[in-house]
């Protein structure tokens, strides 16, 4: 792979993300569904945990306010980091349109990442911002991050992590006729183990330890905990720089895995053309 000069890469990313933004802007009212759904789930979580805490001070080391802030952050970070890279790539492979990318001088993963940038820019405007305003102005939740700088880094890493995981899943379509089953299984696992439903410290100890070796916590739990300002999992307490370092290492591993799979997929594609 011959690396494009940085300026060219930037131009490609800008062009592709602008196109993706325009493409999805036609459906921007659809993302307004999130402006209803996000606050509704948040409100339910708020009442659940307010009732559950009752008089208790902390559960698994988390205070009620930290818990509420956790769910607020988890909802909002989700809007900044979600994507359908797996679904997109599967569709290209299934319809044979992947060929049009094989015939253009760029790495498809870079194209897909640029698409995600455009798509999430839209998510930022039409999902993240309105929900943030609702949380802060209507629900009066304190949405100030413990450290804005670290939050920025960890959300950027989560953005990449989610992308590489789903891109790898999409690459599976080069081998599987129907990758939907696999995608469904991973979607369930990531729903459970990314921390969307409940902070991971509520899981049995061995499951918590296992999470260090799975990609899911780096997609949501880590950035949401960095937002609240303290992180622990599997009885291990890590400082913010330490956990973001772990996350960065996980992103590198996932990136390398995606490159290995991409090369294998390219070999398979150029071998069978399917």
């Amino acid at each position: 792979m011959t690396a494009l000069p940085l300026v060219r890469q930037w131009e490609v990313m800008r062009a592709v993300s602008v196109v993706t933004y325009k493409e999805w802007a036609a459906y921007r009212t659809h993302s307004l569904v999130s402006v209803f759904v996000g606050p509704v789930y948040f409100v339910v979580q708020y009442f659940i945990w307010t009732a559950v805490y009752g008089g208790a001070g902390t559960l698994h080391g988390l205070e009620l306010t930290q818990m509420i802030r956790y769910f607020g952050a988890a909802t909002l970070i989700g809007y900044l980091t979600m994507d359908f890279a797996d679904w997109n790539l599967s569709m290209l492979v299934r319809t044979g349109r992947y060929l049009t990318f094989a015939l253009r001088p760029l790495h498809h993963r870079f194209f897909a990442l640029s698409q995600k940038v455009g798509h999430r820019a839209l998510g930022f405007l039409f999902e993240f911002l309105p929900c943030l305003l609702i949380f802060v102005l209507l629900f009066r939740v304190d949405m100030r991050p413990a450290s804005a700088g670290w939050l920025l880094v960890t959300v950027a890493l989560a953005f990449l992590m989610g992308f590489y995981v789903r891109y790898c899943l999409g690459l599976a379509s080069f081998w599987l006729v129907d990758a939907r089953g696999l995608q469904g299984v991973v979607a369930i696992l990531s729903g459970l183990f990314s921390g969307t439903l409940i902070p991971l410290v509520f899981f049995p100890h061995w499951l918590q330890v296992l999470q260090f070796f799975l990609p899911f916590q780096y997609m949501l739990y880590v950035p949401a905990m960095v937002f609240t300002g303290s992180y622990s999992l599997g009885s291990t307490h890590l400082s913010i720089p330490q956990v973001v370092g772990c996350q960065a290492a996980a992103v590198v591993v996932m990136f390398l895995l995606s490159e290995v799979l991409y090369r294998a997929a390219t070999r398979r594609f150029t071998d069978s053309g399917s």
Partner: protein
Amino acid sequence: MDAVAVRRYLAAYRVCLRIAVRQATTYRASFLLSSVITLVGNLAFPLVTVLIYGSGAGFPGWTADEVLLIQSVFTLSAGLSGLVLGGVVFVTMDRVREGTLEIVLLKPVRPLPFIVLTTLQPESAGVALGGAVLLGWAASRSVHAVSVTGVLSFVGLFLAGLCVMAGMSLVMAATSFRWVGNSRLPEIADSTRTFGRYPLAIFPRAVQSVVTFVVPVGMVGFFPASALLGRSVPGMWPAAATCVAFLGFGVWLYHHQIRHYQGVGG
């Protein structure tokens, strides 16, 4: 509808059922997998309950088994309504977007029953089954005195809950006539239903009234489970009447949108 028409719909229903079952058995592996995935997805909330109680906390006045009973009733209700009406939103949406609703309107049948017939979702059988098993398990641990009135109230309220589920599917499907191609519409119904998964008392009064008498999603899990547990909740039966009215509203709205669609031609 006369007897002949009813017989015709039943015959059509049998054919559609057979097609659905045959499709499911042809793609056995992927059918089983998607059933399991849907089931596991539906069991996430009971899992969270187990984890909360596992941490030594809980909802005041409710044991873990009792909360699981609410959520198993909810799961059973979601499974059964998904089986019959699960696809109605997507089928309507696709037909409106592609402009193929006319094909349905060309057929000598009423559009709503016809669309319902053709949207059977066999995958939801797994959810219903999982919900039923969980219900049996949670009931055996939390219902200490089974009374005839308790069971009868449960059945009545559960059916009312199904009306709410059906009504919500129809409202969403009707909305898809106006909000064309929005594949995220069902999320609105899903999120709203969440209120039925928990003891009502954890919510403020205003929210309780809304989910009892306006969008009566409390009927999907909470009310029937309470009846089975022998806990009487004020407003239970008037709420059941609201549920039937809600279904009526869904049917009316859907028909209204179809008539509108015929008027403007999509």
